[in-house]
C-alpha cells in the first residue's frame, strides 16, 4: 500500500472509516491510484539525485552503446514481437557477468542493483571535533561535507533574556576546502538533531557554536545520523502530513529489530524557546506510521544493525548483525480483501487503537455499536491470524479460544436500542507477522438486517518488510552503512571506537535496454567487452 493513500483518505471526515481504517474498502480502492502517485514522487526525487554533483558516472553522465551488426539484429517473431539476445559482459577484472534486459528506463537507471564490487579499504577517524574537547581538531582523510550532531540540549537561549545572545542558533565551521581555499559554513540549528554542511572541507581550523547548551560533534559526512528522513516519500497520518522519517525499533521481546516509519509533529526546540510551554513527551512530538520487522528474500527474520536510504534507487539498504546487506522497498503493506465478506448492513464494528503495529505488541480494541436502531441480541468476536487460525474472544475479554463465546445484549431493562449494548474493550497479542482479521458477528432484533448474522471486518497489520535482494558479505564486525558522496556503498566497522575501518563498494546494475529501430543496446555499466548471443 502506498504511503500516499492516507493523503487521499484525508479528504473524508475523521469519523469515516474511509479516513481512519486502512483495511477499509475505500482505502484499498484509493491505494490503486496512490501507488502510481507514490512512485512518480519517488522518481521525481530520484531524478534530482541523478544531478548530484559528486556522483560518479551514475545517472546522466555517461551511457554505453552497443551497435549490433546485422547478424545480431533483434529477431522479429511477429507483429511487434521480437526475440532479444542474451548478453554477457566482461569486466575490467576479467570476470564475466550476465546482463539482463529491462523494458523501462526507470529500471535501467534506478532498478535494484545486481552487483556489489569492493573498491577500497581505508581507516578513517570519523570524529573531527567535539564541544567536549574544543581544542582538538582531527584530520579529515578525504575531503567531504561535514556531519554535525547536536544532542542533549536542555536550554535554547532566548534573545533579550539570555545576556549577549543575538538570536542566532548556529554552528560555524571554518577551515579549508579541497583546493585549500579558506572557507566558512554556518549551519543554523533549529533543534537538536543531525545536520550537514554545504561546503566540502579538507581541514577544519575552528568550530563556533551558539544558542544551545547541548553537545555538538562534528563528524565525517554521514557517520552518525540520529534518524534518516526519506526524501522519496511523505509521512501522512490521519491528522497531519510531514516528512517521513525512519529509525530502528526493537520488538517488545527484544528479539527482533526492524524499521519504524514516523513523522514529526513538533520540534523539541520549540519548547526550549518559549516560556510557559509544557515539555512534550516524545510520543506527543511524533506519530508512528508503521513498525516493520525485516525479512530476508526467503521470508526469514533477521536483525538490523544499521540502515540508509539509497540515492541510487530511493530504497532502504540495511546492514544486518551478520554483516550482510539487504535492499528493501520503503513502503507499507497492503491490506488484502478479507476471506469472508462483510454483510451489506453493519450493526457493530471493531475499532482498534492502531491499525498497524509491531510484532509481539498487545493492542486494545473496542466494539462500536454503529447502527443503534435495533436492540442487540448477541455479539461474538472472531480473530483470524495470518496463518489462518480462527479463535474467538472469551468472556474475560483477554483470552482467545477455539469455542465461540457470545456476549449477550442487555435487553431486560432497556427502553432504547442503544441501551442494549455497552461497548466492550478487549485486547489481543500480535505474535505473528501479517494481516490479522477481526470479525464482529452481531444479531439484532429490529431494523435493517434483522434475522441474519451481521458481520463486520477490521484488519490490523503486524508489519514486516521483505527484502528485494540480499548481498551476502558476512562482515560481522560492521557497524554502519551509508552511501558516500560518489554514491559508493560504505560499510564501516570500529566507528564507535572512533577508528573507522571503511570498505567502499561500487554498486552496479547489470541491465540493458534495447533500441529496436536503431538496432542498438543501451548499457547501464561499463564493460570491456559484451558478447551477444541468441539461444
Amino acid at each position, binding site marked *: 500500500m502506498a504511503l500516499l493513500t492516507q493523503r487521499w483518505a484525508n479528504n473524508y471526515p475523521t469519523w469515516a472509516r474511509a479516513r481512519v481504517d486502512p483495511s477499509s474498502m475505500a482505502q484499498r480502492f484509493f491505494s490503486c491510484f496512490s501507488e502510481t502517485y507514490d512512485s512518480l514522487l519517488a522518481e521525481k526525487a530520484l531524478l534530482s539525485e541523478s544531478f548530484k554533483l559528486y556522483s560518479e558516472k551514475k545517472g546522466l553522465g555517461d551511457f*554505453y552503446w552497443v*551497435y*549490433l551488426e546485422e547478424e545480431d539484429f533483434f529477431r522479429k517473431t511477429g507483429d511487434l514481437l521480437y526475440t532479444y539476445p542474451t548478453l554477457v559482459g566482461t569486466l575490467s577484472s576479467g570476470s564475466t557477468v550476465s546482463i539482463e534486459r529491462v523494458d523501462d528506463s526507470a529500471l535501467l537507471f534506478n532498478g535494484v542493483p545486481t552487483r556489489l564490487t569492493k573498491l577500497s579499504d581505508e581507516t578513517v577517524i570519523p570524529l573531527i571535533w567535539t564541544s567536549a574537547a574544543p581544542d582538538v581538531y582531527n584530520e579529515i582523510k578525504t575531503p567531504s561535507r561535514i556531519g554535525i550532531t547536536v544532542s542533549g540540549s536542555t536550554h535554547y537561549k532566548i534573545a533579550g533574556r539570555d545576556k549577549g545572545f543575538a538570536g542566532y542558533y548556529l554552528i560555524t565551521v571554518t577551515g579549508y576546502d579541497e583546493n585549500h581555499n579558506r572557507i566558512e559554513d554556518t549551519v543554523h540549528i533549529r533543534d537538536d538533531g543531525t545536520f550537514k554542511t554545504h561546503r566540502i572541507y579538507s581541514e577544519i581550523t575552528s568550530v563556533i557554536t551558539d544558542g544551545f547548551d547541548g553537545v555538538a560533534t562534528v563528524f565525517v559526512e554521514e557517520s552518525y545520523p540520529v534518524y534518516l528522513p526519506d526524501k522519496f516519500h511523505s509521512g501522512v497520518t490521519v491528522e497531519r502530513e510531514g516528512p517521513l522519517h525512519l529509525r530502528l525499533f526493537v520488538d517488545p521481546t527484544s528479539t527482533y529489530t526492524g524499521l519504524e516509519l514516523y513523522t514529526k509533529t513538533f520540534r523539541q526546540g520549540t519548547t526550549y524557546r518559549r516560556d510557559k510551554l509544557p515539555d512534550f513527551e516524545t510520543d506527543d512530538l511524533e506519530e508512528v506510521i508503521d513498525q516493520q520487522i525485516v525479512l530476508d528474500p526467503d521470508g526469514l527474520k533477521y536483525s538490523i544493525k544499521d540502515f540508509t536510504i539509497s540515492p541510487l534507487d530511493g530504497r532502504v539498504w540495511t546492514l544486518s548483525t551478520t554483516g550482510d546487506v539487504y535492499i528493501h522497498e520503503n513502503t507499507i503493506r497492503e491490506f488484502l480483501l478479507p476471506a469472508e465478506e462483510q454483510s451489506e448492513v453493519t450493526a457493530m464494528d471493531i475499532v482498534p487503537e492502531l491499525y498497524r503495529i509491531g510484532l509481539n505488541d498487545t493492542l486494545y480494541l473496542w466494539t462500536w455499536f454503529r447502527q443503534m436502531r435495533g436492540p442487540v441480541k448477541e455479539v461474538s468476536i472472531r480473530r483470524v491470524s495470518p496463518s489462518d487460525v480462527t479463535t474467538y474472544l472469551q468472556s474475560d475479554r483477554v483470552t482467545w479460544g477455539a469455542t465461540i463465546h457470545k456476549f449477550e445484549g442487555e435487553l431486560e431493562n432497556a427502553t432504547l436500542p442503544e441501551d442494549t449494548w455497552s461497548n466492550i474493550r478487549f485486547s489481543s497479542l500480535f505474535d505473528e507477522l501479517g494481516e490479522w482479521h477481526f470479525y464482529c458477528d452481531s444479531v439484532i432484533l429490529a431494523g435493517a438486517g434483522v434475522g441474519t448474522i451481521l458481520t463486520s471486518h477490521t484488519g490490523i497489520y503486524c508489519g514486516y518488510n521483505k527484502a528485494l535482494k540480499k548481498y551476502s558479505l558476512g562482515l560481522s564486525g560492521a557497524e554502519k552503512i551509508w552511501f558516500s558522496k560518489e554514491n559508493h556503498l560504505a560499510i564501516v566497522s570500529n566507528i564507535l571506537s572512533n577508528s573507522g575501518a571503511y570498505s567502499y563498494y561500487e554498486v552496479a546494475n547489470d541491465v540493458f535496454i534495447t533500441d529496436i529501430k536503431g538496432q542498438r543496446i543501451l548499457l547501464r555499466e561499463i564493460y570491456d*567487452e559484451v558478447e551477444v548471443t*541468441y539461444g
Partner: protein
Amino acid sequence: MGKYTPIKSATGVSLDEVGISLGLQRLPEESLDAYRKRLALQAEDRPRVDERSFIDTISRTVGLFEERIFEIDLVLDGDGDPVAAAPRIEVSSCFLRVWSNYGTSDPELVMDIYNRGKGYHLGDVYTSLNALSFITVTELPETPVEDKDSYKYKRSWFLKYGNTDALEFQGGLRRSRMNNLYNADGTERKYIHNCLFDAGRIFLTEKASYDDLAEPGDYYVDYTEGIVFTYITADGTVSYEYRKFPYTLKLQPVKVFPLYDKDIDHLRKDYLIKDSTGIKDRLQLNPYGAKLVNDMLRAYPLQWGE
C-alpha cells in the same frame, strides 16, 4: 553471435551548465568529481586580467591541479619577531632564491632548478631549504603515507613561479585606535613593512612602542603582527608592503613564467656584444628562443593582416 566493445556516449549534466558560465568545459574522460572540484576552484578564485592570475589559473584550464609541496615559515626570536631582517623567497623561471636580508645582502640560497644538478629534484630543494636557520620547512605533499617520499623525485623546475612580496594599496582603516590588517580570506596579515598613511594629522610621529603613544599624531606599527595603533582614532587608508609568510611552494603541472624573466635568457638567447656597453650580454635569440617567439607571434600576431 558477436563480441562488441561498448561505445561511450557522454551526455550533459548540470555541472556542464555551471562550467559554461564559469568558462571551463568538461574534458573528455574527466570524472564528474574532478570537474566539480575544478569548477569549485574557478568559482572561488575567478581569473582576472593580470599576470599573477594568468599564472594561478592556467593549470585548471587543462584539467590539472597544483600540488602543495612545502610550507615555509619564519623562525622567530624570543620577542616573537623574525630572526631574518628582510626574508624573501623567489621562484623564477629557472632558479630558486632565498634571502634573509633582501636588498642588503646576496641570497643565502640560490638553486638552479632547471638544469641537472643539485637542485633538479624536490628532495634536493627540501634538503637545502631545511638547512637555512631563519626559516622552517614543512612537507605538504598529499600522497599516501607509504609513498610520502615519492614527491622528492619530482622535478623542481615545476615549482610555481612567484615570490613572497606583496603590496596592499590604500587599504581602509577602521575608525578605531587599533587596526588589525587582514587578508581577503579573513586571516591576519603579518610581516608588513614600508607603511604609507594618507591621514597625516593622525599619523604624524611613529613611535617605537605602544607605550610611547602620548599625544595626537603619535602612532605605532607592530610590523610583525600587522597591527596599527594610534593615539587618536584612525581614519583614511594605509598602503604597505608585506611578506607572504607562511609561504606555500606549489608544484605547477603547467609551468608558467613571463618571457621577460631574465633567468631564462641563458636558455633562449646567445651572447652578443651590447652596443651601449661593449660587454657581452645575452641579446641574440638562439633557435630555441626564436621558436618560442614564433610560437607566440603565431598565437598573438602583433600586426594587421593574417
